[in-house]
């Protein structure tokens, strides 16, 4: 029987689809009977989906700075391809 600690260690591979059929089966069996691990895997999955957006959007100032530097770089290229 899989231990809860092992579920935590394998959750990354589970969500990445990297477990073998047998490993996935063992993990699913554990999750059916263990509500703590069920909660861990569910909340962990949501957290991973939030990470790509965790840095938020750039401010108008930051955007302007990038766009200005872009224009200057274009000019300094002197129209070369």
């Amino acid at each position, binding site marked *: 029987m899989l231990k809860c600690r092992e579920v935590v260690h394998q959750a*990354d591979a589970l969500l990445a689809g990297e477990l073998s059929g047998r490993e996935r089966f063992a993990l699913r069996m554990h999750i059916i009977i263990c509500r703590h691990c069920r909660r861990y895997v569910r909340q962990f999955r949501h957290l991973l989906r939030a990470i790509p957006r965790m840095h938020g959007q750039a401010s108008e100032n930051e*955007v302007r700075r990038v766009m200005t530097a872009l224009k200057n770089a274009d000019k300094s290229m002197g129209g070369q391809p």
Partner: protein
Amino acid sequence: MSAEAVSEGIPDIQALKRGDDSAFSDLVRFHHRTLMAVATAIVGIDDAEEVVQNAWIKAHKALPGFGGRSALRTWLTRIVINEARMLLRKSRREVSLQLDDDQHPLADRFREGGHWSKPPVTWHDESPDGLLMQSELADCLSRLLLSMPASQRAMLELRDAGGLEFDEICNELTISASNARVLLHRARTQLFKLVDHYQETGEC
């Protein structure tokens, strides 16, 4: 292009390829901070801005040839990594991601037999949007990222925020695939622990 599509960060590829300034501004708005985090993880905070600025210039030039085989975020992250490596080469620095001796972030949450001693609490609003909307939690997360071992943070930014595959990360930076996985796992579980603690106590 609908307003929702813009706020969701779905890019208008055709407008970008035409060289539309407002579409490019949207692209910058949506990805700049993540690219800064990626660059910071590799070259450090002092050089990150230069790296990302050069990457935007390269990306702007290369956009008409963007094939759409990978996500734009991943494509941009690759350009940032190339710029970062060029800068490191110039200054004769090297990045190698080392495994640290830290214990597992959730080690104290298990009993000796491997069962939970302190299981995770139920998060109030566990959806990704719900997590992102809590500004205090976002502050806690940024502080945690700063205090994390640099190797762990680099893996989290490259793989989870930047969307690069393990193979690619291992090719670009000196690290084995198994160490890369351990570092990423530790970084992620540190975030989990923080969110769990925040949900329980309302504090970092």
